[in-house]
């Protein structure tokens, strides 16, 4: 196969573990894969504001409320960094939002679970943000420059998200028996969905090999999942909370925690739209977007009026 000079330059960048920048030539598949992945990532940040935002008005103290507001504001910021990164690939933010609202681009299935108690906010910070960090740190070394820069900012900010969740759960776990039970219940419900955040097992992840070859993905789903389990199980001991996996055991030979079987039917069911909150999340997103339309129009009209007044 004869390659054009553009292709050769692209391949050389990938081979050197260098970075591809927006105006470089890139294969259509590379561009499509990045748009799909970065858009899904951005949508996850924006939809992810809902389950936690649910508890802002009912946070148990001013301290916890201020922390939660800052965290949810960070999620909005992370969404904006990522939409901007995706836009460098030639898609507009407005189009990505349309695709999200029409169900044609996805967000992480984890946000289709409800936040039933205050302890869920802690469990999300500790487990969901913990899993997100394990997924995201390697993306700070991926091959596409704008994605790298967005992820570096996000990972710096994400650490507070996980620590505040751990602290909140630790307070509950070491509080009254009712508070401890509430923390355990939240962990029981969020553990397996967090494990599933790393995606299907390696032998059922058909696009992974190409993403690895392009330097978009650096580790396999199962490798990252194992890393998360190894990090998190000892943290559960410090929290004084049980991991809801009767088969969980430490393998002395490999030095890894071995988890039990994952219910992939549940994962696929939620992906196909049947999770407890799929419809609610999109309805809320669409409602927010249309209710904010007058603000966007007013700002545009004001800018146009000002531009007319200022002599060129």
């Amino acid at each position: 196969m004869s390659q054009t000079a553009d292709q050769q330059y692209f391949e050389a960048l990938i081979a050197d573990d260098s970075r591809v920048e927006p105006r470089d030539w890139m294969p259509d598949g590379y561009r499509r894969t990045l748009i799909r992945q970065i858009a899904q990532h951005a949508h996850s940040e924006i939809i992810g504001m809902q389950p936690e935002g649910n508890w802002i008005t009912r946070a148990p103290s001013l301290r916890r409320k201020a922390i939660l507001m800052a965290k949810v504001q960070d999620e909005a910021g992370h969404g904006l960094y990522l939409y901007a990164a995706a836009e460098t690939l030639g898609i507009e933010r407005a189009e990505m939002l349309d695709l999200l609202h029409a169900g044609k681009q996805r967000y992480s299935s984890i946000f289709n679970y409800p936040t039933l108690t205050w302890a869920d906010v802690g469990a999300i910070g500790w487990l969901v943000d913990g899993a997100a960090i394990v997924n995201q740190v390697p993306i700070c070394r991926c091959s596409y420059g704008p994605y790298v820069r967005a992820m570096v900012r996000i990972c710096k900010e994400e650490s507070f998200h996980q620590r505040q969740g751990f602290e909140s759960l630790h307070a509950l776990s070491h509080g009254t028996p009712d508070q401890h039970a509430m923390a355990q219940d939240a962990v029981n419900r969020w553990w397996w969905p967090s494990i599933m955040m790393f995606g299907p097992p390696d032998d059922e992840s058909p696009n992974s090999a190409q993403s690895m070859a392009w330097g978009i993905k650096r580790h396999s789903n199962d490798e990252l999942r194992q890393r998360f389990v190894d990090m998190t199980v000892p943290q559960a001991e410090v929290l004084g909370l049980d991991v809801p996996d009767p088969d969980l055991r430490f393998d002395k030979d490999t030095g890894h925690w071995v988890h039990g079987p994952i219910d992939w039917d549940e994962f696929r069911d939620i992906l196909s739209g049947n999770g407890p909150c799929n419809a609610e999340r999109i309805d809320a997103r669409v409602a927010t977007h249309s209710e904010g339309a007058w603000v966007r129009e007013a700002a545009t009209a004001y800018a146009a009026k000002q531009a007319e007044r200022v002599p060129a």
Partner: protein
Amino acid sequence: MNEPTSRDWPLWEVFIRARRGLSHSHVGSLHAPDADLALHNARDLYTRRSEGVSIWVVESARITASSPDEKDEFFDPAADKIYRHPTFYDIPDGVQHL
């Protein structure tokens, strides 16, 4: 200015001076209807943790950039002038402050 086909506000590039004595560095981009709101959005988006003491915003469409297609011809003239670097010169051992 904004292309007529775009449904979103114009894109702005954001530059932040992290602290006095440093130059402004590019940190990312955002959409805003005008320069004032671009500044405010940049403050909210890029300095939530005191990352800056000064912000510049520039409408992305106003930036003129070198083309990646011409990178060789454009930057070649510097490639063969290694005598512009201090390490090019042989200096006898023991010479100080040079």
